[in-house]
């Protein structure tokens, strides 16, 4: 693997650091700030990677920032306020163990990405960082108890998929826009959290309490 260079590589490293910020933090607001910042970086990447600046790329970048860095984090904060969620993360797996799992995920992502052949890319970090973000998002999704943190995990999973889509953005138009469709789910989930709240029978947003239906 040749040494990664330039701005895209730096941005991708930051994206990966933010994955770890979410894994390690005890505060919900830090989680949300981290995915918002990740959304901002994701918006910048199409501009940095494009060979020529077309209107399409600019619109994609602006749209990504508007949805991932502004709208969804704002909705998440609104849901926390509206549903008066407690501000701690409450993991099912401890923070140290989560960070270790994250490190394993990164190692795995680099190992897998090394074996998968890709046409020449601007930066070789794109595929490993994408896979690592997908896996870490999945870890957050399944090891955190609160519905809000699960949404954050899903958002990271999606961000990872978006990064992978960047590898093909030039050859297949509108591929990345499919990822934005997934963001609709996130919006629905956040609405769902507030509906939970309105449905007064739920006195906590702990999804581990959603256990009435089981065998």
């Amino acid at each position, binding site marked *: 693997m040749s040494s990664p260079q330039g701005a895209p590589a730096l941005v991708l490293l930051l994206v990966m650091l933010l994955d770890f910020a979410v894994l390690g933090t005890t505060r919900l607001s830090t989680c949300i700030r981290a995915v918002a910042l990740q959304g901002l970086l994701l918006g910048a990447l199409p501009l940095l990677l494009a060979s020529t600046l077309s209107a399409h790329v600019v619109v994609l970048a602006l749209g990504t920032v508007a949805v991932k860095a502004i709208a969804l984090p704002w909705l998440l904060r609104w849901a926390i306020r509206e549903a008066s969620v407690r501000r701690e993360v409450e993991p099912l797996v401890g923070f140290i163990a989560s960070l270790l799992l994250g490190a394993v995920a990164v190692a795995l992502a680099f190992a897998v990405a090394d*074996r*998968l*052949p*890709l*046409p020449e890319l601007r930066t070789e970090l794109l595929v490993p960082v994408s896979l690592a973000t*997908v896996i870490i998002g*999945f870890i957050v*999704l399944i090891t955190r108890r609160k*519905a809000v943190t*699960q949404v954050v995990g*899903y958002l990271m*999973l*999606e961000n*990872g*998929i978006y990064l*992978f*889509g960047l*590898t*093909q953005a030039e*050859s*297949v138009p*509108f*591929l990345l826009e*499919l*990822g934005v*469709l*997934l963001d*609709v*789910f996130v919006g*629905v*989930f956040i609405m*769902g959290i507030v*509906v*939970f709240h309105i*449905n007064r*029978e*739920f006195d906590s947003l702990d*999804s581990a309490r*959603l256990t*009435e*239906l089981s*065998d």
Partner: protein
Amino acid sequence: MRLLLLCALPLVTALLAGILPGARSGRVAFTRLALLAGVALAHAALVGSLWVTPAPAILGGWLDADALGLIVLTVVSVLFLATAMYTVGYLQRETPRGGRLFVSAMLIFLGATTVVSLSQHLAMLWVGMEATTFAVAPLIFHRHDRRSLEAVWKYLLISSVGIALALLGTFFLVSAQPEGLGRPLMLPDLLAHAEALHPAWLRAAFLFLLVGFGTKMGLAPMHTWKPDTYGEAPSLVSGLMAGALTSCAFLCVARITQVVMAAGLGSFAQPVLIGFGLLSLSVAAVFVIGQSDVKRLLAYSSVEHMGLLVLGLGLGGVGAYGSMLHVLNNGLAKGWMFLVVGNVVLATGSSAAAVNRGLLRTLPVSGTLLVLGLFAVTGSPPFGLFLSEFTILRAAVAGGHIWIAAIMLLLLAVIFVGMAVLILEMALGSPEPGTVPVREGGWLVVGPIALAAIVLMLGVYIPGPLNDALTRAAVALGGRAP
């Protein structure tokens, strides 16, 4: 033109049903129900016409009714027609909030499943599957209580993770396609240049698409949303999901299997499919025993049948034919059973076995259909499911997988016993003293009777054109006709 109409008609009328004025006194507007039934009829008529005279591909080949798609589209259309008739009776009995959203969501569901069935572009296929997820969410949440909220949350969370993984798999498939060899993600182009696809990426794409769409199918171990969702959703919605939605998700799995087989990676894909199939059968067998709620029982039966579908696909040969026939049988039989259970729930307010005894006496028509349905869904002759399950079993024996055949038979027997205990208890038992037979409205029984008749027919006679389509589909999946 007909293909475009098939996709557009439900979507446009969904909009119309949303803006039609509601009737006074909380009843569902007659116009809205007439619209639902009319669209279902028109859709079924158009699908019927596709069997008589094939329609050319449109939109640059993005929409085409090939054999696989046409079979799934037929399941969707027939099941929807039966369910729409049922809905006319159902919404007159139970109508929170006038049924405006309910009818619109059903029509959007029909449109989205039609797009999935006809789609030849794998990104459009994915968009269609995502749309079905959204369309059924308000249907599951119909009762707006705590339990249905929990069910819809579980369903949305688990299936959207599945949908996300399927999107990643779709991206992997783009990476597998060498530049300049055909249009990206177009199925015919993928198949034409299958040999040139990059094997490592194709394997990764197959696994992610299988797990992603397998989640939507409800294959074990991604099936955990199924009992809760089917248990809490209105029965007719559970029927549409177990019959139509899962068939569409299976079609997605079949599409990527088509590509993998054409690329000569069958030896990689087939054991994975067989593994998921046997695991689903085992999970169903374990959880069917001791169930106390008939809707949850049917949900595990659905896990079983999803397992059989991928098992047939994985065994190849005549198994592929068996799977395609099973799509048809399972889809219609699940609709039949859930609609009948819907009648039970309408009469007694519960699907728990404990409060439903002696159904043969209290609900003569539905009770009889329930008992017949028990034999149909467990694959007893003379129903269609016997034929398709037998074909899959033959594929296992012919392929030299005696152990797989033995395990399959054993698990099917366990599932039969588990289901029979619960359903016969409900049908025979003695009803609460003083209960009188309930009048079952015509709208509520015509759908399940029609579905039962078709499933019975498929067990004794497969029409020529259908046999041709099944054969073509089996060949496309790397198999053959028996």
